[in-house]
């Protein structure tokens, strides 16, 4: 998948001597329409957009993303709406990579093959399935590959050396390194130096894979991890949506401001 949009986004960022910025928002947060508007607006600054399909029993998400997910579900988001958001987004921004992220039960209920077909049709570039680790993900990952969809695996500080090798060997264009033992949105409790050392271990295995770092990344911490191929910000964005709604302010403007600031920090 050498020529994938995801690969190209990393190449572009590397050309500008900076990490790629990846954003995460929940589809349908707080409404279908608004989440599409947010996505369109932040994609001016984000290199890759992750879009969560919300689940009501998320076992790896912290409070901020849970709140966003519950809000989206309450406002009636369905899986097909998620695809239609991607579809509409891609009509305007056909070169901006979109990664869907969520939990396996949603895919299982939709049917794996149907889900992948639908991803392909709506031009989804990649998939992250939080609770489908290696080797359980082998079959699904190869199905994704056949449809030219990037299946993105995660690596954590607890991942053993032998697992690390296997995951890297079976990975596609991108690998997601979890900065610390935490759910999403936890406070960064490990030093940037230590995170980058672990990150380098992954890079040393295979330089050609794009490795991004996520979990605990905010305006405050993003600069310290600049050396990575890419950095993911999710909870900080979800938190902004929550606080904008509370203050009855424009979520699109406020979230875009945050993403712009994040981008400026790593330029």
């Amino acid at each position, binding site marked *: 998948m050498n020529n994938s949009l995801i690969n190209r986004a990393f190449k572009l960022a590397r050309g500008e001597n900076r990490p790629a910025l990846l954003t995460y928002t929940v589809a349908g947060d707080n409404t279908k329409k608004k989440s599409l508007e947010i996505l369109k607006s932040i994609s001016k600054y984000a290199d890759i957009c992750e879009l969560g399909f919300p689940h*009501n*029993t998320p076992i*790896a998400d912290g409070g901020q993303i849970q709140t966003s997910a519950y809000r989206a579900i309450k406002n009636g988001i369905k899986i097909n709406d998620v695809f239609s958001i991607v579809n509409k987004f891609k009509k305007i921004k056909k070169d901006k990579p979109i990664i869907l992220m969520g939990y396996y*039960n949603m895919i299982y209920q939709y049917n794996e093959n149907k889900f992948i077909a639908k991803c392909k049709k709506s031009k989804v570039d990649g998939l992250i399935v939080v609770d489908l680790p290696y080797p359980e993900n082998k079959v699904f990952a190869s199905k994704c590959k056949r449809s030219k969809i990037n299946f993105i695996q995660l690596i954590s500080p607890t991942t053993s050396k032998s697992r690390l090798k296997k995951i890297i060997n079976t990975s596609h264009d991108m690998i997601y390194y979890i900065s610390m*033992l935490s759910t999403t949105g936890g406070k960064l409790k490990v030093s940037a130096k230590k995170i980058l050392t672990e990150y380098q271990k992954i890079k040393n295995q295979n330089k050609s894979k794009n490795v991004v770092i996520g979990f605990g990344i905010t305006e405050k911490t993003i600069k310290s991890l600049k050396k990575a191929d890419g950095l993911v910000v999710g909870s900080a964005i979800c938190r902004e949506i929550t606080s904008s709604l509370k203050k009855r302010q424009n979520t699109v403007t406020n979230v875009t401001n945050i993403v712009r600031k994040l981008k400026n920090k790593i330029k």
Partner: protein
Amino acid sequence: MKIKKNIPLIDQHDKLGFWGGRFGGSFIPETLKKPIEDLTKEFQKLRKNKTFIKKRDFYFKNYIGSPTPLIKLESLSNHLGGAQIWAKVVSEANGGAHKIYNATVHALICKSMGKKYIVGDTGAGYAGKMLSMAAKKFGLKCKIFMGAKDMKRQKPNCDAMRKNGAEIVPVYSGSQTLVDAVSECMRYWVSNCDNTHMCVGSTVGPNIFVKICGWSTSQISRELKIQLKKKFKKIPKKIKLINCVGGGSSAYGFWSEFIDYDKKQVELIGVEAGGPKRSKLHAAPLSRNAKIGILHGAASYVCQNKEGQIHETESISAGLDYPGVSPIHCFLKDTKRAKYTYATDEEALNAYKLVTKYEKLNPSLEPSHAFAEAIKIAPKLSRDTICIVNSCGDAKKDRDILKQRLGKF
């Protein structure tokens, strides 16, 4: 799909941890892979270790109080006519419920792994209470995750947990019941798995937790087998083992030694929570034909909508109020070895009334569901049929609910 003989059911899974090729597994975030692998290795090692088994048996006998009694409910049987009703009074175990077996084993494993902190989930509060007891006994720091709704309705158990020095973490997300407590506990473990051991309170969750819990509770059926042979000289020709099923830990423990028997001789009946009579909500994924889904790291029948969002459940019994069920019970259902039905809140309350009227027994709302089924079927059965109900919990914790619903306790 077929059950093999002479192999414990907990070990009849494939390489990826699936029973019958489709139930169970380990659907977990990458961060938990290593701690779960470590736990799996440790458990495999310990269960073969004679010193560990001796230690387990020592605590089962001297701390938990094994064996718990098997008694005939004469007056109730006479009143109903038909089959003889017996009860395995597991609620006589230290702490008042079967949850003590799993809690004790987890505390021993935690010790052996050199971890100082232990966390667990609880619905009815028994899993939490027992874990707090075991933690205290073995000098571990303990945190219990519990839905805010359950904390209100099972206050006596919360008091007990605090008394044992455990911290209760109230969970306010979702329906504020067991399902949310388990999610929150898993999230906590994701963040603290380097120094903390997690105990899943039932035969649910990632494969290894199903195994450890089933291995622990199977003590109940080992005792029962000996007791039956003593009382009847051999295993009687017609037995029905009736057990409530929420996650399914007590039912598996009650049945495990009898799975190899022909079902004409030993019938296994699981009773789920049917919820209030007039409500559409329930907690009965097996008997009310829920679809297979993934919840808390395992594939099982799950109450959920078409999209895969987990349904809210409703039951008077906090311990059964869970949208999923053990993969082992899904396997027993699909192989037709066990039969599953449900009792409504009202039926459970009526059963409680009847049992306490005729017998010196005080079953909690969970086993009252099982008694409801026994009461329903016994009159239609022959005198030589032995219905044994696992009275797996004591009603002390249900004081407030019983007062409110029946006007007395």
